């Protein structure tokens, strides 16, 4: 995206830092639960509360999840990594420091391929990913003079993924977040729920004159909590930079707040000693060393990821790229589709899935796991149409019944007598009957109102309760009307 200013063309330079809560039962350094939505301060151990003498112990499953995620990002896994203390004083961090990784993160450079609206793809480079503990949650809107602190979130494992400044438009950043969320959900390492805060995005934005390679001063916006807001924040912040530069000003490096209501960003009070975290190696935890065998074992267990699945659906099942991308974005949808398509016409199954099926879920406000129509039954319905047992129109009615009762479509067709009529003499009789009853229309047709052809077809289909094979109906009407 090029921003056209008053005097110049400008290009956006943007990088993202994404905090992803690790799916694990217990916290990264303590044995308290990670469960979201518990009463305040129930899921807190003395380690999380920063009580004197408490020591962190590393949760091996969090390490496993981090390595798995690193592999999913096609990234280098560092067999040697270290924990560091990031010192800051704030009510959401009882210890006065966050245990994180600084110089030696567990995951190094990787790459994520994003799909853009024009059908092209782009590679976004990952700079690194490290593991750390989450902070507590502060609530500021209960009382005008007090803040309320809930330590339940303190100590939940986080993966912080840092990209290179590779985004040139809000659209690319949005596509990246959706792809990343999809990968994490396939891997089952983070649930990706931005509204619950298990995936949070910090944005760094700067602009430069189009065509140059310089990197100008950037501004950061923290904790933007939806894909839409991330895209809005990037666009509006970039436009602000352009205005500042074109009016002869300079952009100051600062953290800005994104306001979801106005869509604009505003400066936060500058911290007096910003970014003086005084990192040092965490004395309570020795370095983390993992083996090649360990990494290989996790690599062997990796599920098929969305891009691989998408390519397979295109190449082996004949889906369009667009359909495959939509189906593969969500793991549950992809699994449902595969089950439904196995042994049936995959393209037709995809059409039903993305059309009537999604519309039905939306109307009933259901997730795909709650669907009354099973994958197998959707496949069977497609077969009934393919084998000319029912028409496409009747299939819609059968689909409706399936969505109410969850029954097998074959049984519905059998019981309700919905089988398509392909018997020529039966259809011919109906056609004759319709023509005999509408001689005036026949006359009009013969006098040039050819648009009435469709009306005759409709009448015959109606008379047959939709069961007459439309091709045969067409043929007879053509014959008889001459």
């Amino acid at each position, binding site marked *: 995206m090029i921003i056209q200013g008053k005097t110049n063309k400008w290009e956006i330079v943007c990088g993202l830092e994404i905090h992803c809560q690790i799916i*694990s*039962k*217990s916290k990264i350094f*303590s*044995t*308290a*639960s990670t469960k979201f939505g518990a*009463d*305040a*301060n*129930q*899921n*807190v*151990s*003395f380690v999380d*509360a920063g009580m004197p003498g408490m020591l962190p*112990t*590393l*949760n*091996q*499953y*969090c*390490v496993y999840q981090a390595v798995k995620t690193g592999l999913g990002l096609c990234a280098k896994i560092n067999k040697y990594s*270290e924990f560091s203390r990031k*010192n800051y*004083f*704030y*009510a959401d961090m009882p210890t006065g420091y966050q245990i994180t990784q600084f110089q030696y993160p567990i995951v190094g450079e990787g790459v994520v391929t994003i799909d853009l609206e024009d059908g092209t793809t782009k590679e976004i480079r990952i700079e690194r990913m490290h593991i750390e503990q989450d902070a507590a949650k*502060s*609530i*500021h809107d209960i*009382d*005008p*003079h*007090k*803040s*309320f*602190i*809930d*330590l339940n979130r303190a100590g939940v494992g986080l993966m912080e993924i840092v990209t290179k400044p590779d985004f040139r438009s809000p659209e690319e950043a949005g596509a990246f977040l959706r792809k990343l969320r999809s990968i994490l959900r396939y891997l089952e390492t983070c649930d990706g729920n931005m509204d619950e805060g298990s995936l949070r995005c910090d944005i760094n934005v700067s602009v430069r004159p189009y065509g140059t390679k310089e990197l100008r001063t950037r501004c950061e916006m923290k904790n933007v909590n939806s894909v839409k807001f991330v895209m809005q924040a990037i666009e509006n912040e970039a436009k602000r930079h352009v205005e500042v530069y074109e009016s002869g000003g300079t952009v100051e490096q600062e953290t800005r707040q994104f306001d979801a209501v106005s869509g604009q960003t505003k400066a*936060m*009070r500058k911290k*007096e*000693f910003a970014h*003086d975290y*005084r990192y040092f*190696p965490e*004395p309570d*935890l*020795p*370095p*983390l*060393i993992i083996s090649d065998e360990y990494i290989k074992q996790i690599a062997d267990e990796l599920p098929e990821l969305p891009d691989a699945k998408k390519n397979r659906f295109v190449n082996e099942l004949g889906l369009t790229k667009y359909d495959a991308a939509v189906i593969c974005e969500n793991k549950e949808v992809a699994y449902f589709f595969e089950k439904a398509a196995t042994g049936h016409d995959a393209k037709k199954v995809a059409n039903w899935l993305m059309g009537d099926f999604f519309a039905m879920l939306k109307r009933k406000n259901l997730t795909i796991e709650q669907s009354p129509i099973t994958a197998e039954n959707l496949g069977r319905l497609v077969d009934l149409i393919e084998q000319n047992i029912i028409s496409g129109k009747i299939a819609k009615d059968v689909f409706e019944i399936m969505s109410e009762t969850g029954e097998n479509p074959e049984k519905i067709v059998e019981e309700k007598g919905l089988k398509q009529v392909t018997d020529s003499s039966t259809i011919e009789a109906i056609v004759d009957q319709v023509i005999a009853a509408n001689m005036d229309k026949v006359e009009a047709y013969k006098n040039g109102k050819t648009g009435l052809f469709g009306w005759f077809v409709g009448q015959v289909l109606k008379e047959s309760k939709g069961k007459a094979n439309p091709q045969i109906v067409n043929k007879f009407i053509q014959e008889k009307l001459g």
Partner: protein
Amino acid sequence: MTIDKQTVNRIAFLSHLKIDENKIEEAQDEFNKILNWVEKLSEVNTDNVEPLSSVNENSLVCREDIVIEKNQADKILANAPVKEYGYFVVPKVVE
């Protein structure tokens, strides 16, 4: 390396410690003594020596992913100076 008064004040600020004006010089002196003592290490030639951040390399023991502590609020809040509705209450800290 020597620590000046300004650095003492800055470290105190970052640590949220209040150091009386008349104690600053003393603290400055203490800091410098420690630094001078550690400075001794620079006499050792460390060319071609990998940085060592722990003497316990290879000894990180991980634990299983199990939950032990539950319903902790009463215990965790036992010594809180101010608590309400199961939360710690602190002076407003929003920026």
